[in-house]
């Protein structure tokens, strides 16, 4: 750090410097999503070699359906982890909200939209309640939400009543998880999304250049954009069934053509919350509190308020996950194990590259981690493995990624000061 270059970086960054900067960040323990991406390639290769239908339209469509709930919960978990807190209650909150929806819509005759509005409100209120306990009363979030994990499950059983299950046949609610986008919409989504991504990225760099600030070369931006566009178009092509029978994508006999709605909902949530965390003042404060609560407080940030708001958002997302779950199962049921649902969501966030130690990570890691966990579970199912194998493998993968996170943190410590 002794090179004295007075803002020499004001000239446009060369491609080489961008690559060099990335390498430096990796060495300093800023691994981000790299481990998860590498893991995903390994997992897909392994299962594809064992089961030729693994990457088929039908199975990928299943995968997207399976990660809807975990991914949505994981978005909330990422927000909480960024604050350097934890929320163990999301699984219970999600099944409680699901039970509330079923109770009012099926047994009390509410319309589906008022039912959904109520379940979301219940979720947000629970989050605010827990947030108050941990942010204002200063009980550790681990304990508050552990109490929530137990308590809200109890409330769920009380709401469901003696039968333990309420079937939900309401068509609007059912449609959420069972419909797919028409093929053309899928294409439009992929193309439009990629174009919007490109526009935002290029505009960022053009503005920087115009302001006389160091900017990335357009080639780097173009390559990244091309990669995003290629991946989204490929996913839509597979889900639309256009690649059925082609190369590794296998030949599926029955295909549910189109992008499943839960996948679209999850992607939408990820984009919204990624924007919120990376570009707004609220997001900046979340990272700041996760990095150093004392520095944040001294900077005049309302730390208590932000904590309560974030836990409220996390529980609101748990309610959305509960909605997707209810729709998929066609029921609200006691049979779902909230502890496992919660831990899978936390595992997804951490595997995707969000640090358990606070202040580092991105909402995208929720999606990536959910895809990793979903891919493993799905592959083992397809392979005909017993449930116990799934638990052991998931546990091992989580341990591996948390270890990587811990080592990366040590790297950051060693390189700092």
């Amino acid at each position, binding site marked *: 750090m002794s090179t*004295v270059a007075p*803002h020499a970086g004001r000239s446009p960054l060369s491609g080489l410097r961008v690559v060099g900067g990335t390498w430096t960040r990796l060495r300093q323990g800023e691994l981000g999503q790299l481990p998860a991406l590498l893991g995903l390639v390994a997992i897909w290769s392994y299962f594809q070699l064992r089961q030729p239908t693994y990457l088929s339209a039908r199975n990928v469509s299943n995968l997207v359906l399976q990660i809807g709930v975990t991914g949505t919960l994981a978005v909330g978990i990422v927000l909480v982890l960024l604050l350097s807190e934890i929320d163990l209650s999301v699984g219970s909150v999600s099944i409680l909200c699901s039970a509330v929806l079923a109770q009012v819509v099926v047994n009390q005759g509410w319309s589906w939209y008022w039912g959904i509005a109520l379940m979301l409100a219940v979720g947000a209120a629970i989050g605010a309640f827990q947030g108050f306990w941990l942010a204002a009363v200063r009980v550790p979030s681990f304990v508050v939400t552990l109490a929530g994990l137990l308590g809200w499950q109890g409330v769920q059983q009380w709401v469901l009543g003696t039968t333990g299950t309420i079937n939900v046949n309401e068509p609007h609610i059912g449609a959420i998880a069972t419909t797919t986008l028409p093929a053309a919409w899928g294409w439009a989504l992929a193309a439009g999304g990629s174009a919007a991504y490109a526009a935002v990225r290029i505009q960022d760099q053009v503005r920087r250049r115009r302001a006389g600030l160091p900017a990335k070369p357009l080639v780097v931006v173009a390559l990244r954009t091309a990669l995003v566009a290629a991946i989204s178009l490929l996913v839509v092509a597979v889900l639309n069934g256009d690649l059925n029978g082609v190369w590794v994508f296998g030949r599926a006999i029955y295909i549910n053509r189109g992008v499943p709605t839960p996948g679209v909902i999850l992607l939408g949530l990820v984009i919204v919350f990624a924007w919120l965390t990376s570009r*707004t003042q609220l997001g*900046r404060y979340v990272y700041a509190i996760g990095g150093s609560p004392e520095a944040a407080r001294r*900077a005049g940030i309302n730390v208590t308020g932000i904590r309560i708001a974030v836990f409220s958002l996390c529980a609101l997302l748990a309610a959305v996950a509960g909605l997707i779950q209810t729709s998929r199962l066609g029921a609200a049921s006691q049979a779902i194990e909230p502890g496992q649902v919660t831990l899978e969501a936390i595992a997804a966030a951490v595997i995707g590259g969000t640090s358990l130690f606070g202040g580092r990570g991105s909402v995208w890691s929720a999606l990536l981690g959910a895809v990793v966990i979903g891919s493993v579970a799905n592959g083992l199912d397809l392979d005909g493995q017993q449930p116990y194998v799934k638990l052991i493998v998931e546990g091992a993968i989580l341990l591996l990624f948390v270890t990587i996170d811990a080592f990366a943190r040590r790297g950051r410590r060693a390189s700092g*000061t």
Partner: protein
Amino acid sequence: MLPVPTTGDGGGLGAAPAPAATPVLELRGISKSFGAVQALTEVDFEVYAGEVVALVGDNGAGKSTLIKCISGAHLPDSGTILVDGAEARIHVPSDATRLGIETVYQDLALCDNLDVVANMFLGREHTPVPLLGPIAELAMEKRSLEVLDALHVTTIPSVRQRVVSLSGGQRQSVAISRAVMWEAKIVILDEPTAALGVAQTEQVLALIRRLREQGLGVIVISHNLHEVFEVADRIVVLRLGRRVATFQHDGTSPEDVVAAITGARLQVAR
């Protein structure tokens, strides 16, 4: 030159000759106790614009308490604070900030996981809508570069670098630059070089001199007398919660100051 002893019992007797007519910050008869412990007794204190005042004293002399009374972290039991000659109410830290008083604490001031720009604007981001509005990153980045350039902080390669990757001296430079960029009139530095090596200490001392050149009133708390003599125009000594001596930089020897801190010289002076 002999030290100019002050009685410390109110009245500001023996205050040093003023570089300007009205001090930018003046404390009169500040007392503060915590239960049975009298932390400050009738302390007077003043800083002029374009002046570096070192506040020295042994552990428990009341330096930190005095600083906290100025920065709004503590409310004094009695006494008045004047900013530019006008009486000021400082009840919470934001009162001090609004009056142009910025405090740079020894540690915990920066978020390691955020970059330099984010840290410099933390809590005061440019945004059209509070909380949910987009942050105007470009304007903030340009302003950060301007501030660092104006203070000749040239050792930071990129303002988009995370603070975790900066050295101790660079971090302190960022913290000080952040403090002065908000039209500060008075900057309080709490042990600014305590954790730094020789070269980095020089960086920070040079930065303190530039703050003086820019007409700010600077208060430095330090244990390091060598450093105090390098930057301070005046040295104020606290002992057991009272202001016991004031020295001009010129003609004072470190031995005089040490004597005042330990109380040995005080007996002679009286």
